[in-house]
């Protein structure tokens, strides 16, 4: 009964979305406040209805109601509670419900906090959000109904892919979707601005927090996915340039570009139509990502079911929104007046270079991901585009960008002195050179280029700090003054320092792990030892352990570092009888600077077990850096200028530092 209510709520939400799409748009056109006011109520109602449907679905999973086909296909009564809940979105239908739930949440947030938005703009934004809701709710109801019943009711469920039964992956989709769908806000604002034919500073100020929120969530989501790949897939890799990974990376790259160009649009009134275009592309790439992952054109853990109709419908949705938005853009964008003249050597100029390189990097990932599909569809040769391609295109494009990151924020608006900016970076440059030389002198292993890579990382981290230190005139004024200035500095400044510094940490992690990884692949019998880097591993015993819904082969491995006993590591190989699948569970021992990563494999038939071990220097920094970047996003989001509901312009506040 309650299930049918959930289904009914979803249908009702579709109807409400239709109203939200049409009525406020007409109201905005006629200048009718009453019609425009419908947008808020519809957005809130839509959220409540979809939220109810979602809760119903969660309830069905938690109570293991196998009369629901979805629950039967993706759950099992013996599964731990957390995976019963995450099972809701670990399948196609449920994940689409989560998608529209987050979409409705963003819409409701605009309705709730958007009282300081011009009512016409708010009505149009919510109408565009409504149209996205119509498309995806329609898609769910027509092709992917999560509330289908089974008769007769099976006694037990079929279980969930063990690879997905993992704490990291349980929360990877919600974050990723919060990012993907969050970009729909930037999209809706862009479309509303195009319809209105006007983009002003307040528009840009409204777009930035939404983009920032989406970017932060996307950063966390991607980091979680990569972390999961690292510890679950069992060979210590963290990024495979898999099309599905690329599908999440593309919107991230363009969202990053959008964040930066929106700064110019807000502060200087320039790059307006470009910012709009980026907003359109960022969400379009989210849709393309959804299409790639959900349509079954790609095979991976993500493609739950390949139903051709679904692929066609999503392709239709993508074509409609991307095509429609671009047509509208071509028609209306020329009307947007650019202001804000600036010299090439200026903050604006630096942000344009940022956008150019990020766009090119985005194109590299986009074309690398889709080219094989297009070529195949056109009857061309079957090719593969893998890691070596991206290393030769994406990496060389990103390198100059990374080098320029600390410089940009030190350039002034309009016209800047390069020499003055470089002078402030002397300390960072000197430290970077010093680190490179130290690596060259003391590390004999790995390519000499790794030294430059670590130098680059130092440059980024210290450079982010140099910018910050200059703003609070650290070491130039008494400490008290500097601290006071630091406290008064806009949160966005703090956020940028964290984000750029985190990027440096991330680079150090990538370089360290790539250049200096040690590996050991061997077969050990109980009692035998082997060494990897400075560690000695002894396979003391191999046993079986019974988990809640699996049986695990456990290797008990004693670890010694230069003779010092560090205790045991217990990698597992888990066998899931219900799903008839296996999963390696690596044991990872980290000291913050490097990981010791151990995997146990099968019995080799001669009483030995395959043991793989890696020492991954700086590996934890990869995810640490990403989390610091996301933290920077959060800090920036807390800037009072963006605090939703705070209508005052922060510019009226006296500022001790030069305009940022």
């Amino acid at each position, binding site marked *: 009964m309650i299930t049918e209510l959930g289904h009914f709520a979803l249908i009702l939400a579709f109807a409400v979305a239709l109203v939200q799409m049409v009525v406020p748009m007409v109201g905005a056109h006629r200048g009718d406040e009453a019609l425009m006011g419908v947008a808020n109520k519809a957005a809130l109602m839509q959220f409540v209805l979809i939220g109810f449907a979602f809760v119903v679905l969660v309830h069905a999973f938690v109570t293991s109601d196998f009369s629901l086909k979805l629950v039967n296909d993706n759950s099992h009564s013996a599964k731990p509670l957390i995976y019963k809940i995450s099972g809701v979105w670990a399948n196609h239908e449920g994940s689409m419900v989560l998608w529209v739930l987050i979409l409705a949440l963003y819409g409701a947030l605009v309705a709730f906090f958007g009282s300081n938005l011009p009512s016409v703009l708010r009505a149009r934004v919510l109408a565009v959000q409504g149209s996205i809701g119509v498309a995806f709710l329609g898609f769910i109801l027509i092709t992917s109904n999560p509330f289908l019943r089974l008769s007769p009711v099976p006694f037990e469920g079929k279980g969930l892919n063990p690879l997905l039964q993992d704490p990291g992956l349980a929360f990877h989709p919600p974050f990723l979707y919060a990012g993907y769908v969050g970009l729909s806000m930037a999209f809706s604002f862009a479309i509303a601005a195009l319809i209105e034919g006007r983009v002003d500073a307040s528009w840009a100020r409204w777009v930035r927090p939404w983009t920032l929120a989406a970017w932060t969530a996307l950063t966390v989501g991607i980091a979680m996915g990569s972390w999961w790949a690292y510890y679950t897939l069992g060979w210590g890799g963290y*990024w495979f340039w898999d099309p599905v990974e690329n599908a999440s990376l593309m919107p991230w790259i363009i969202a990053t570009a959008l964040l930066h160009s929106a700064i110019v649009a807000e502060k200087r009134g320039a790059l307006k139509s470009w910012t709009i275009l980026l907003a359109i592309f960022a969400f379009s790439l989210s849709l393309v990502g959804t299409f790639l992952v959900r349509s079954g054109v790609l*095979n991976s853990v993500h493609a739950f079911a390949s139903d051709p109709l679904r692929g066609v419908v999503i392709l239709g949705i993508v074509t409609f929104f991307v095509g429609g938005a671009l047509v509208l853009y071509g028609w209306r964008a020329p009307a947007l007046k650019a202001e804000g003249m600036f010299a090439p050597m200026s903050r604006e100029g630096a942000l344009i270079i940022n956008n*150019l390189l990020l766009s090119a990097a985005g194109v590299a990932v986009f074309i690398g991901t889709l080219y094989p599909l297009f070529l195949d569809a056109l009857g061309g040769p079957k090719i593969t*585009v893998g*890691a070596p391609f991206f*290393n030769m295109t994406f990496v060389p494009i990103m390198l100059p960008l990374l080098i320029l990151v600390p410089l940009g924020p030190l350039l002034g608006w309009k016209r800047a002195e390069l020499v003055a900016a470089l002078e402030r970076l002397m300390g960072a440059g000197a430290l970077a050179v010093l680190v490179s030389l130290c690596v060259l002198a003391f590390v004999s292993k790995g390519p000499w280029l790794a030294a430059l890579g670590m130098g680059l990382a130092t440059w980024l981290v210290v450079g982010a700090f140099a910018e910050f230190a200059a703003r609070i005139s650290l070491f130039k004024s008494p400490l008290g003054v500097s601290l006071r200035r630091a406290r008064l500095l806009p949160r966005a400044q703090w956020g940028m320092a964290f984000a750029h510094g985190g990027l440096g940490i991330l680079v150090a992690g990538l370089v360290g792990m*790539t250049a200096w990884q040690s590996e050991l692949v061997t077969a050990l019998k109980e009692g035998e030892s082997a060494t990897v880097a400075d560690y000695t591993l002894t396979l003391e015993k191999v046993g079986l352990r019974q988990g809640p819904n699996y049986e695990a082969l456990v290797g008990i491995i004693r670890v010694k570092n230069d003779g010092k006993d560090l205790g045991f590591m217990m990698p597992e190989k888990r066998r899931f009888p219900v799903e008839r699948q296996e999963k390696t569970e690596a044991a990872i021992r980290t000291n913050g600077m490097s990981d010791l990563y151990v995997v146990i494999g099968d019995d080799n038939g001669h009483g030995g077990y395959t043991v793989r071990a890696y020492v991954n220097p700086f590996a934890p920094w990869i995810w640490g850096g990403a989390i610091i970047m996301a933290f920077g996003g959060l800090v920036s989001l807390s800037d009072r200028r963006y605090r939703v509901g705070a209508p005052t312009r922060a510019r009226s506040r006296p500022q001790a530092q030069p305009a940022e």
Partner: protein
Amino acid sequence: MRRLVLALSLLVALAAPALAVNPGEALSDPALEARARVISKELRCLVCQNQSIDDSDADLAADLRHLVRERLTAGDSDQQVLDYLVARYGDFVLLRPPFISATVLLWLAPFGVVVFGALGLWLAYRRRSAVRAPQALDRDEQSRLASLLDENAPRG
């Protein structure tokens, strides 16, 4: 240049450097084994999703790793090993797509965006500065301005 790019890409590669070579697979000659590992990173495990045979534990990947080592032991050069595999499985086996007519766009587009983007920006900047440069009014315009100012003066 090509070697530099290769070295750069090896350095900052986002790709997984790890491997799934099984015990006993490795060649006893370390130089040959090192070459085998480099080649393995360039070859796709045909039944996997964009994984190289170096980091897949699929059976087919193991077979291909054996094959690569067999060819190397037989005295093939790195290129000959790759050619041999392409002859058997087509370009699909290469993770680095070959530069052929069908892939020109693929290889050039990313850098094309940088080059043409920069060119476009430069042209836009030149056009804008040309527009911005103030031009003196000619005599006709000056007299019109003077008469307009005259007209408006009493009322203003």
